[in-house]
């Protein structure tokens, strides 16, 4: 184990800190539309998929729909925008993806994220960090997120979501 001298800054874990759920909003739906398709007027074209339709698409997908409603907008030249939500390791992420008329990804923008609370966490290992906390414990939503150095999370959940939306896009094209 490497030894440290005066460069050492040691921080104790024991200080009582209320649990803080981080949340951040980058773009509203309208801002996301403008960011991905600037100057384009998009028309809302939402679709609801029933359970069988979702399961059909999920067969080739790497994740699942969180909602039965597909939030979709269409532009005058075949552009399409989807807004979708995924669960990361321990956060909900809303994002927008714009597709060209050829059905290729033009851009992906993260719209917002919110860290999950203890009772929302799926993976048992992470629930340990909430030992002793219940739903009634105070949870503060921290909106003023400082710049944090240190591994954040993988974007794989968002890219899996985009993959599912591309499958959905093809399916909707075949089932107008």
């Amino acid at each position, binding site marked *: *184990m*490497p*030894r*440290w*001298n005066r*460069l*050492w*800054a*040691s*921080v104790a*874990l024991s200080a009582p*800190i209320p649990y803080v759920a981080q949340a*951040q909003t*980058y*773009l509203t739906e309208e801002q996301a539309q403008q*960011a991905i398709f*600037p100057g384009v007027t998009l028309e809302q074209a939402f679709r609801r998929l029933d359970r069988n339709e979702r399961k059909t698409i999920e067969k080739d997908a790497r994740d699942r729909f969180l909602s039965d409603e597909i939030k979709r907008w269409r532009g005058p030249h075949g552009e399409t925008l989807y807004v979708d939500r995924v669960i990361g390791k*321990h956060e909900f992420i809303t*994002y927008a993806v714009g597709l060209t008329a050829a059905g290729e990804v033009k*851009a*992906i*923008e*993260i719209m917002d994220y919110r*860290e999950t609370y203890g009772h929302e966490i799926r993976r048992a290992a*992470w629930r340990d*960090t909430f030992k002793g906390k219940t739903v009634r414990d105070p949870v503060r939503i921290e909106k003023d997120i*400082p*710049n*944090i*150095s*240190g*591994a*954040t*999370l*993988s*974007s*794989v959940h*968002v*890219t899996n979501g985009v993959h599912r939306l591309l499958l959905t896009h093809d399916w909707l094209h075949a089932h107008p």
Partner: protein
Amino acid sequence: MPILKRARPLLGTFVEIQLETTDRAQADRAFDAAFLAIEAVAKHMSFHSPMSDVSRLNAQAHLRPVRIHPDTWHVLQKACELAASSNGLFNIAIAPRLIRWGYLPDPFGRGKTEAVGQSADIRFLAGHRIRFRRPLHIDVGGIAKGFAVDQAVTALQAQGIRRGSVNAGGDLRVFGRREPLWIRHPRAPRRCTYLGDIHDQAAATSATYYSRRRRQGRIVTPLIGPRGARVMAGQSITVIAKTCMMADALTKVAALAGAAAEPLLKRYDARVYCVS
């Protein structure tokens, strides 16, 4: 001045860009230019993409010289310079071990038999061409992520942005303003600790809280030193430096060498914090 923020999934993580301006059109152009700069680095230096410079080098450079993009050339030169000045502690040719431990995919099926190479096996030829003295698996993931952050900052500044920051999965750089720097606590990574303020500097943190795995009954991490020495879990090292590329690269050296890394860090005008 209002701080505008955008984030996109890139480099396998989330890249968040912040900039200060009242001109929305300038902001849009600046965000696009900066994210494009990140995508360019990802395209050239990804270990995962078969057409990247890194993949082409790993596949062919031991057979014939391979021409690469000037940016990749720059990163490789810096990597080899640091390998020399750190006596091999910094080594981008350790991919075979990372493959065996499941941290990297094995695109050529060589991971199980390939020996760990040395940065000294990389030869720099005229015309941005590289030749390997023997089969190597190089992975510039960390240092390239830092370089991507630096490129994004350059792009923002070229668009006239004077104050902002870029944060690529924890490798970050702040320019034109003073900002508090926080890190995740190594043993409770959902909690953060304030380290100090940075101003026109970059920071990178090496820690194992999200990358530890169990292998044959022992905990392993992707931080590997010479003779296979494994960095202890439960600590994190943050390096503050002028550029994000150097901050990231130096975290590896600092994690492995501890206090012995001091002279090297001084040479690169960097400082380090160890938290456990």
